[in-house]
């Protein structure tokens, strides 16, 4: 018995690991499919409606791209402010990060979508020196409110990423730029940020992937039909045909595919950055110390 088992183990050892885990995945998919069909899932409905739901991918991507663009800007400003010794910049950035990390995204979305317009209206009513159309600036449509909420929220989290990235640039780099008489802006633009970028880009990719999924929350505000992203579309047709579950499964598959796809690209990007022209100072330092320790032995 235990002998047979050992022979199985030895035989299996010859099959490449990747193929074995692949087989496990296939088995898991088959199992889930079985569970799904046991649950009386209407696979036909999923097939029929996938096309319509997937039609919202465009808006999912718009929202996520808009959100990440804003988030990058906020994170950059936030990080520079958090590093600076200017109390006003530092204080505002600290407040921003604390608030947007401290409250749920969904609350932020509702506040931006619902609470902002009356603020604008009342201010415009109170102070007539405010420009024409002032109140309208506060009247965001759903997608804009969603993008802004996502951007501000993720920007707050990414402030820490950017700060860490900037601080990962060796202090000597900034000192060298200072010593050459560069201004703060020149130093940042030409020396520090280009180097920080290589540390910042990979986690920013992760944030983008996370954000794609959080675009689902925008639908709780209620999007216009022309610009409905996949989650809202799934909810709509699911409710319509009383097939919520199938709709959720369909949209889950879409998100999953998106994530797997972008994770793949992100991993490639990371690898490319990894073997770039410059190896990080940390690595070089570690290597140097290793070399020395080796050299300490007989040469």
């Amino acid at each position: 018995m235990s002998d047979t088992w050992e022979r199985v183990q030895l035989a299996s050892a010859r099959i490449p690991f990747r193929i074995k885990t692949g087989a496990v995945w296939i088995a898991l998919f088959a199992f889930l499919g079985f569970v799904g069909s046991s649950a009386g899932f209407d696979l036909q409905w999923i097939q029929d409606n996938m096309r319509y739901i997937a039609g919202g991918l465009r808006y999912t991507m718009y929202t996520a791209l808009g959100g990440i663009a804003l988030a990058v800007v906020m994170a950059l400003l936030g990080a520079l402010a958090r590093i600076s010794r200017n109390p006003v910049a530092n204080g505002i950035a600290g407040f921003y990060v604390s608030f947007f990390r401290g409250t749920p995204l969904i609350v932020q979305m509702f506040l931006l979508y619902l609470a902002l317009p009356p603020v604008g209206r009342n201010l415009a009513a109170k102070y007539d020196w405010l420009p024409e159309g002032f109140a309208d600036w506060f009247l965001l449509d759903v997608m804009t409110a969603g993008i802004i909420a996502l951007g501000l929220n993720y920007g707050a989290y990414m402030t820490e990423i950017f700060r860490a990235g900037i601080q990962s640039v060796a202090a000597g780099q900034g000192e060298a730029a200072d010593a050459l008489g560069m201004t703060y802006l020149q130093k940042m633009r030409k020396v520090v940020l280009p180097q920080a970028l290589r540390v910042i880009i990979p986690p920013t990719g992760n944030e983008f992937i996370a954000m794609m999924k959080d675009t689902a929350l925008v639908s709780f505000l209620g999007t216009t039909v022309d610009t409905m992203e996949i989650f809202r579309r799934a909810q709509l047709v699911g409710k319509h045909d009383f097939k919520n579950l199938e709709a959720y499964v369909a949209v889950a598959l879409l998100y999953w595919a998106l994530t797997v796809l972008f994770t793949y690209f992100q991993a490639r990007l990371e690898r490319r950055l990894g073997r770039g022209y410059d190896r990080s100072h940390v690595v070089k330092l570690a290597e140097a110390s290793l070399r020395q320790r080796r050299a300490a032995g007989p040469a």
Partner: protein
Amino acid sequence: MTGTSTDVVVRIEGLHKSFGHLEVVKGVDLDVHRGEVVVVFGRSGSGKSTVLRCVNFIEDPTEGSIEVAGIRLGGGHRTRRKREQIRQLRLHVGMVFQQFNLFPNMTVLDNVTCAPRMAGKGSETEIAQRAKDLLDRVGLADKAREHPARLSGGQQQRVAIARALAMEPDVMLFDEPTSALDPELTGEVLSVMKTLSTEMHMTMMVVTHEMGFAREVADRMAFFHEGRILEEGPPSELIASPRYAETRAFLEAVL
């Protein structure tokens, strides 16, 4: 080589520097005259680097003042105007670091040209020409298009010297420029530094423990001990007959 006051390029007066409660520099006065090479040496932790870094305000003096090329500044809060004054002072000072600190995101040529270009020191062609001349002088004309990571430590340090020279400073500061190098590479850097003094008559402050270099190139040596200059004098005198036991002990360890 002592000159009149007008010859003074760097004047350090009553310099004190504390980090928190730790006083690291406890009153240093030092004049460096035009064309003079001053070698600074002393134990680890005696404050050599700190003094050098105060000269171009990478560290703010706690007390005392620094004068370079007629610009005299003390410590204190960096207001907008103060920052600009510091930047003006720095344009007269070149600095070379132990860890080279080349910009890894630029080619060798860009490393040398970026600061003059930002400071608007001449036309684009002038700047490029000067950079090429300098790279030639440090023996690296053929590496202009490389990235620093592909150079040896000695080559990197020579690029760093060219980069600092490109700003046409009145004084060059060197903080242990060869101590991060493998022994076989120190020679090429020291010889470049030597030609700076002999051929270009560059004013230099050099922290180093290469006594051979000091003996040959230095006009004056200053021995740092616990945040003060314990003694100074021409290398011939100081090395041969140090007055203090501390200096003697240190020299014995190094030589």
